[in-house]
């Protein structure tokens, strides 16, 4: 069925990382299709050429955040990256994400990424139960709009892989956890807003960011963690000046 959409027998040259840190690129030939994502290419290689190829995906539609890889040097969600859009880049090169320990082939260990979410105070603390009335939050309030801007994060770690400060300073919390913290600091239902702010004010927190903007450049869902981090820097400054009104 898929063969019907094949592009006149044209083949794509693909280089895929095999092994762990001391692995190497291996080249494969994959039939070119008119409409084909990078994830489709990886899947084709695994189904037809290399059954032991390890990679991650789940939803295939940009929701779960598990398919991120480095494609031609840039971190991307592979299920929503069309091969056609990368045409100018030369042959495809697919590697695991940067800044995370590699497990095998295209699979990274995400534990350090999620540990940072915890360290950044990213866990919501409820202040009411389902029997309490819903709190009223004005949709156009400053805080609500700050939350809206960052809430659609899919935890894909693309920003983490893009950020050089993460690469330079292993203890840096990184863009996604800080973005998460900013949504919580602005959420009046969160029971630990002070604590969350305290956790990100430290040396390895928001002030370590140099506003390089790689996170915002590559976030596949269009979040700008740089803006969230800037918000945390301002909140931290206000805190330092002793004003706790926000």
């Amino acid at each position: 069925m898929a063969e019907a959409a094949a592009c006149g027998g044209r083949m794509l040259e693909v280089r895929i990382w095999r092994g762990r840190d001391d692995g190497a690129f291996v080249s494969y030939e994959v039939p070119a299709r008119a409409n084909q994502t990078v994830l489709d290419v990886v899947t084709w290689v695994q189904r037809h050429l290399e059954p032991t190829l390890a990679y991650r995906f789940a939803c295939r539609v940009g929701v779960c955040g598990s398919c991120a890889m480095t494609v031609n040097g840039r971190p991307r969600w592979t299920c929503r990256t069309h091969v056609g859009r990368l045409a100018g880049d030369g042959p495809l090169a697919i590697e695991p994400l940067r800044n995370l320990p590699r497990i095998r082939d295209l699979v990274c260990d995400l534990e350090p990424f999620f540990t940072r979410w915890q360290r950044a105070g990213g866990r919501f603390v409820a202040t009411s139960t389902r029997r309490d009335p819903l709190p009223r939050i004005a949709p156009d309030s400053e805080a609500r709009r700050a939350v809206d801007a960052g809430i659609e994060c899919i935890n894909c770690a693309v920003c983490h892989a893009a950020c050089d400060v993460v690469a330079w300073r292993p203890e840096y919390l990184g863009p996604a956890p800080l973005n998460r913290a900013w949504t919580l600091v602005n959420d009046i239902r969160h029971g630990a807003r002070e604590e969350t702010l305290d956790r990100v004010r430290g040396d390895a927190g928001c002030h370590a960011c140099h506003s390089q903007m790689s996170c915002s450049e590559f976030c596949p869902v269009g979040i700008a963690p740089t803006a969230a981090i800037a918000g945390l820097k301002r909140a931290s400054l206000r805190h330092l000046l002793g004003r706790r009104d926000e």
Partner: protein
Amino acid sequence: MRAAHRRHPGYLAFLAHRLSGLALALFLPFHFLFLATAIEGEAALEGALAWTANPLAKLAEWGLVTLLALHLALGLRVLAIEFLPWRGPLRLWVGLGGGAALATGLLFLAALGR
């Protein structure tokens, strides 16, 4: 393909800022040494000032003013990102647009001023 994740305006602005900052830091001691010749008497200062007439020194001076203007403009870019409220998808306007415009403006001023 190497370091492709760095090829975008925000990162380039950061890089230019850091490099210009480091270059300025390297220059500062020389600047102070130069000014210190004033303490050694008028003759020493005059000698040093005469040296600045040579084209190489002029070029170096121009480079320094440019670096400072660039560093300042990019510093303002950082401050704009961090203190002006903005959100949502990239607002590179805030970053590069403002930075580049200011840098050019300052460069022109510096050029006119001499």
